[in-house]
């Protein structure tokens, strides 16, 4: 054959009710990659196409429909590695990039550009946060508003778990905080004020 693709939509818990949704998406992603391979495109392009397809569906925990951070944002990780060149491109905790795997792939392209014309710069293996988002804009990748990658499902889950978590945290801190700090912990205030000092006090492992 002219090649093949295998993809996964995560390991964890897949409800039986959604099985067919996952299977249909898996087949769709494979089809996109196989069409690319049949037309002679490289394995790299095929992997980016397949994972882009998976990122665009809200059923998966990547790209659109990702899990939210405690603060309610989408921050994505992605990486890609090429067995022939051994080049590796990764992005970490990046917000507002519609397809994180495309940004990771752009790092591979950038590495090869720098290597081929010896500009004397060392191309990064990994970019994080704002720098990664800036690089995405420079490479004309699609950058979206902070709400666009948040699915209804994820928003509901976030509210459910942060409320439960904050209640637990408040109990824990009241037992372990010295009296002088107890009155600072007020779970309602957490979401109303942006006092980063207060954020620091509760965002610890």
């Amino acid at each position, binding site marked *: *054959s*002219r*090649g*093949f*693709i*295998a*993809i*996964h*939509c*995560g*390991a*964890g*818990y*897949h409800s039986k009710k959604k*099985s067919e949704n*996952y*299977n*249909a998406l*898996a*087949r769709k992603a*494979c089809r996109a*990659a*196989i069409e690319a*391979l*049949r037309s*002679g495109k*490289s*394995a*790299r392009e*095929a*992997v*980016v196409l*397949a*994972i882009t397809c998976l990122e665009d569906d809200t059923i998966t*925990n*990547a790209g659109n429909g*990702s*899990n*939210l*951070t*405690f603060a309610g944002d989408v*921050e*994505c*990780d*992605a*990486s*890609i*590695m*090429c*067995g*022939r060149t051994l080049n590796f491109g*990764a*992005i*970490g*905790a990046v917000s507002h990039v519609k397809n994180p795997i495309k940004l990771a*792939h752009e790092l591979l392209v950038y590495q090869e550009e720098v290597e081929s014309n010896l500009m004397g710069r060392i191309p990064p293996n990994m970019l*994080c946060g704002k720098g990664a988002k800036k690089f995405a804009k420079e490479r004309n990748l699609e950058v979206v508003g902070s709400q666009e990658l948040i699915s209804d499902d994820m928003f509901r*889950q976030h509210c459910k*778990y942060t409320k439960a*978590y904050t209640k637990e945290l408040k109990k824990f801190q009241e037992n372990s905080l010295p009296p002088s700090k107890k009155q600072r912990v007020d779970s309602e205030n957490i979401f109303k004020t942006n006092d980063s000092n207060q954020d620091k006090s509760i965002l610890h492992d």
Partner: protein
Amino acid sequence: TVGAVCVDCYGNVVAGVSSGGILIKQPGRVGQAAMYGAGCWADKKNDDCIAISTTGSGESLTKTLLAYSLALKLQKSHSIITDLDEVFNDCFMNSRFVNDVTGRFAGVLGVKSTPLEKNDTTDTEFEIFVTFSSDSMSIGYQTTADEEASAEILR
């Protein structure tokens, strides 16, 4: 987390992974999908190729450099079917770097070229392999010779 491994008509292997991370994670937290050697690995040495994509408890995958650790051992294996579980237990389930706090869930999807018979340069065969320690793992696979893709949720 989602991921893919691929072999093209030139015999190149590539692995990729993408993830939104764990639910209500701390802002700025970076998981295995962005870590070298943890989320994905691909290596082509002559005709000996391997590509792996992982998913699961990010902190444990990161501390065990799971994709790289598995590739290192499986590249020496002559039979994925017999060695996979043992290698997975060595690299992850029984690893000192994994504990109940960081979690013991992991899923692995990989492809490896099978050793050629001596002087057989006509073709390279590949094996796809999957293993996981969670309730289920969703996969899909297809070759360019297949009419349709196959997909299933392994439980």
